[in-house]
């Protein structure tokens, strides 16, 4: 990770997806409300987990749960721009994985927001933490 995350570029993030903002994302100050940045974080993390790491949220006995999220807001986003969300794996623990996330606004080289999202794998019945499944682990290694 570079010293100042707000100076990162899209190329620093191996997994990216476009997220169109919606009219209702803007608050009364005319910018996307801070809460909604986490909705974008969630969108890129959940899609990555399903499409790359093989997570089946409905049927898997062991699945990831959010334990910590953080966002730093560097610049506003605003409807109708299309946001590009970038993700990389920052840390792989025994049962947890930390994703570094950045949100890029249209026409900007540096992120409007950066932060992280920590998932811990838990047994859906007991809610006890479990080792990261092998397939997911291999995927995280590739997206460091």
């Amino acid at each position, binding site marked *: 990770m570079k010293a100042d995350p707000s100076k990162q570029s899209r190329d620093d993030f191996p997994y990216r997806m476009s997220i169109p903002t919606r009219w209702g994302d803007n608050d009364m*100050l005319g910018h996307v409300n801070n809460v909604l940045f*986490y909705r974008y974080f969630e969108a890129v993390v959940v899609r990555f987990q399903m499409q790359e790491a093989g997570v089946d949220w409905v049927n898997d006995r062991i699945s990831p749960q959010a*334990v910590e999220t*953080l966002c730093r807001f560097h610049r506003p986003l605003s409807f109708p721009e299309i946001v590009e969300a970038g993700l990389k794996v920052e840390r792989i623990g025994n049962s947890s994985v930390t994703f570094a996330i950045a949100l890029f606004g249209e026409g900007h080289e540096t992120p409007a927001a950066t932060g992280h999202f920590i998932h811990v794998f838990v047994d859906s019945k007991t809610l006890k933490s479990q080792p990261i499944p092998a397939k997911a682990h291999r995927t995280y290694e590739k997206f460091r």
Partner: protein
Amino acid sequence: MSQDQTETRDRYRHFLGIQTRWSDNDIYGHVNNVTYYSYFDTVVNCFLIAEGGLDIRDGRVIGVAVETMCRFKKPIAYPEAIEAGLRTAKLGNSSVRYEIGIFRKGEDEAAASGHFVHVFVDRTTNAPVPIPVPIRKALERIKTPGRVEQGKRP
């Protein structure tokens, strides 16, 4: 990963009851992680408006979020009503760090806790401005003595 820490009600100076809504729950039947930040937003802004006289419609000064964080400990779910606890952890010239706990009714340990950093700016120029006096006074009232960081007991 977060260090283990206990956030209990006595560590907060102001509380707001919040009714969860049907759409707060996700497919697991628990309040979705993103929604906690909506509770954060609500307790902070309600406090600033009611106790500090913040005029969100016509005031010259607005609060802009610069950093937020939440740790999720225990699930909460619609239809329960929750309580959000608030304290001022650090008061700067134009910025403030609030710390927030989300509590289930009748429970002393927070189901989730985190922080929210606001910087007050001029609505027109976006330049940081000193925190308006009535807001500063309100924030002083809910300040925690002597310590600012979570997880380090005095």
